[in-house]
């Protein structure tokens, strides 16, 4: 590992990652990056890389600067930008507001800028349509197009929003009349009582008895699931599908004897089965009337 202060270079096998100090201001990062690359100029040969800006919020100018610095000082070509949905979500709003200049606002959450050579394939990864050129103005427009396409992809599919926020933990009984909408997974460490209402863009896990109304995948993700230690709730929703507990005795889930239950969507209706792991194959479940 080479240490150059703000910019560190980590090599793992054939993968090389630039790790940039989370809290350093952008101009320092740019300076250090330039410094490092010019010192080590012989180290790089031609190749395509991806920039992972992590949770750092960068505006259009800054992305273009990073691109030009790296491309001018090494033989590398930046083909992709990768960023966490969080920095994209608020970051590109920032760009819309102040297109000309301004630095990224300091973020209280830990932020990080990375540049892995072989990044993991992530859902919000976007390939540059054309190989970018070296001049700053042209790369600027390339960056713009990346951001635009990222944004479009991001907004097009609501299910992609699932990872925007972390899971929310509710540590006390969720009572009648209480209502919540969270853009992520929700974990309740107690009961959800009748008359309570939880909507989550992700999964809902209740470590107690779920008697209220819950809606998992509220932004349209039909793959979301509801897991509860007891599931006496008569009605819930996953994505766009409604589930109403069957009234006929034949289908009636054996309540307490079965233990934890999972509700999921299978062939356009909600089914409930004894829980056997989040990614287990669930074939036989009690179908709920939609």
């Amino acid at each position, binding site marked *: 590992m080479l240490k150059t202060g703000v910019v560190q270079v980590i090599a793992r096998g054939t993968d090389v990652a630039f790790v940039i100090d989370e809290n350093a201001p952008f101009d320092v990062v740019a300076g250090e990056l330039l410094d490092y690359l010019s010192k080590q100029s012989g180290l790089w040969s031609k190749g395509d890389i991806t920039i992972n800006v992590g949770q750092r919020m960068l505006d259009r100018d800054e992305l273009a600067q990073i691109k030009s610095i790296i491309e001018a000082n090494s033989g590398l070509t930046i083909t992709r930008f990768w960023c966490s949905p969080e920095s994209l979500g608020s970051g590109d709003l920032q760009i819309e507001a102040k297109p000309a200049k301004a630095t990224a606002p300091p973020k209280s959450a830990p932020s990080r800028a990375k540049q892995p050579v072989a990044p993991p394939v992530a859902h919000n990864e976007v390939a540059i349509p054309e190989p970018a050129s070296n001049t700053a103005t042209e790369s600027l427009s390339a960056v713009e197009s990346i951001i635009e396409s990222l944004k479009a992809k991001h907004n097009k599919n609501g299910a992609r929003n699932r990872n925007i926020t972390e899971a929310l933990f509710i540590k*006390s*009984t969720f*009572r*009648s*009349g*209480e209502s919540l909408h969270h853009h992520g997974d929700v974990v309740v460490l*107690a*009961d959800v*009582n*009748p*008359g309570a209402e939880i909507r989550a863009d992700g999964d809902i896990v209740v470590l107690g008895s779920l008697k209220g109304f819950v809606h998992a995948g509220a932004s349209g993700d039909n793959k979301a699931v509801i897991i509860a230690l007891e599931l006496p709730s008569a009605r819930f929703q996953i994505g766009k599908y409604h589930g109403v507990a069957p009234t006929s005795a034949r289908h009636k889930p054996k309540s307490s004897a079965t233990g934890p239950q999972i509700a999921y969507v299978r062939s356009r209706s909600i089914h409930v089965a004894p829980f056997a792991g989040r990614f287990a194959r669930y074939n036989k479940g009690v179908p709920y009337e939609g």
Partner: protein
Amino acid sequence: MKGRTIVITSGKGGVGKTTATANIGTGLAMRGHRVVVVDTDIGLRNLDVIMGLENRIVYDLVNVIEGDCKLNQAMIADKHDYELYLIPAAQTRDKNSISPEQLREMCEELEKEFDYVLIDCPAGIEQGFKNATAAAQEAIIVTTPEVSAIRDADRVIGLLESSGLHRPKLIINRIAYEMVKHGDMMDQKDVESLLAVEVIGLVPADEHTVVAANRGIPVVHNSKSAAGGAFLRIAARVDGEEVPLMDLEPKTGLFSRFKGLVGMSGRAYSHA
């Protein structure tokens, strides 16, 4: 020493808030404390009737808050020989006549002089509820073992917790032992597990309660009644004494069994 202000609330009407207030207040007074009970059910006052003080009302809560009279002019002394006072609600006004801040101020005054300030909260979760709960540091929820009352209690507990009144205590009122035994009524454990709050008392269904209310003498004065005993124990628990919750099973002594045989025994629930 500064007194404690406790609100007695339920959400649903008719579950026994006023009865509980009168009886816990009387019970605490019997234990030698200085107690004042405040009826905040403006427009639908009842506490004065339960305590048998309706004929003595001159000034009321709204008069105090609007400055028409002094605080102690509106305080009606109980008929019995205890340090127990009632501040009645106004009957001709409505809940918007007072604000939460005004009631809070008044209770702070009362806390200087009394050990316990009990607030009888109106049913519902509107202005009257907001007034009553704003003034209190502690809350007692009254419910009956019926789904509707429990649902409302659940809502109220949520509202109390969100307004900073944490860990309310629960009284389960009107438990009919025979019905619980036959599975026709929820038992204490069902209610407790649903509401997930500490139970401070179980009050059996008891005809004596109704008779006492009609006579204007709270049932705690009746040493023979099961409900009276239950309210005395609740008062002791409010006071910080460790009194275990008792089973609702009726006495099965030889004499009562004999009475049962010859048809004399009515509803002889003993402990709660």
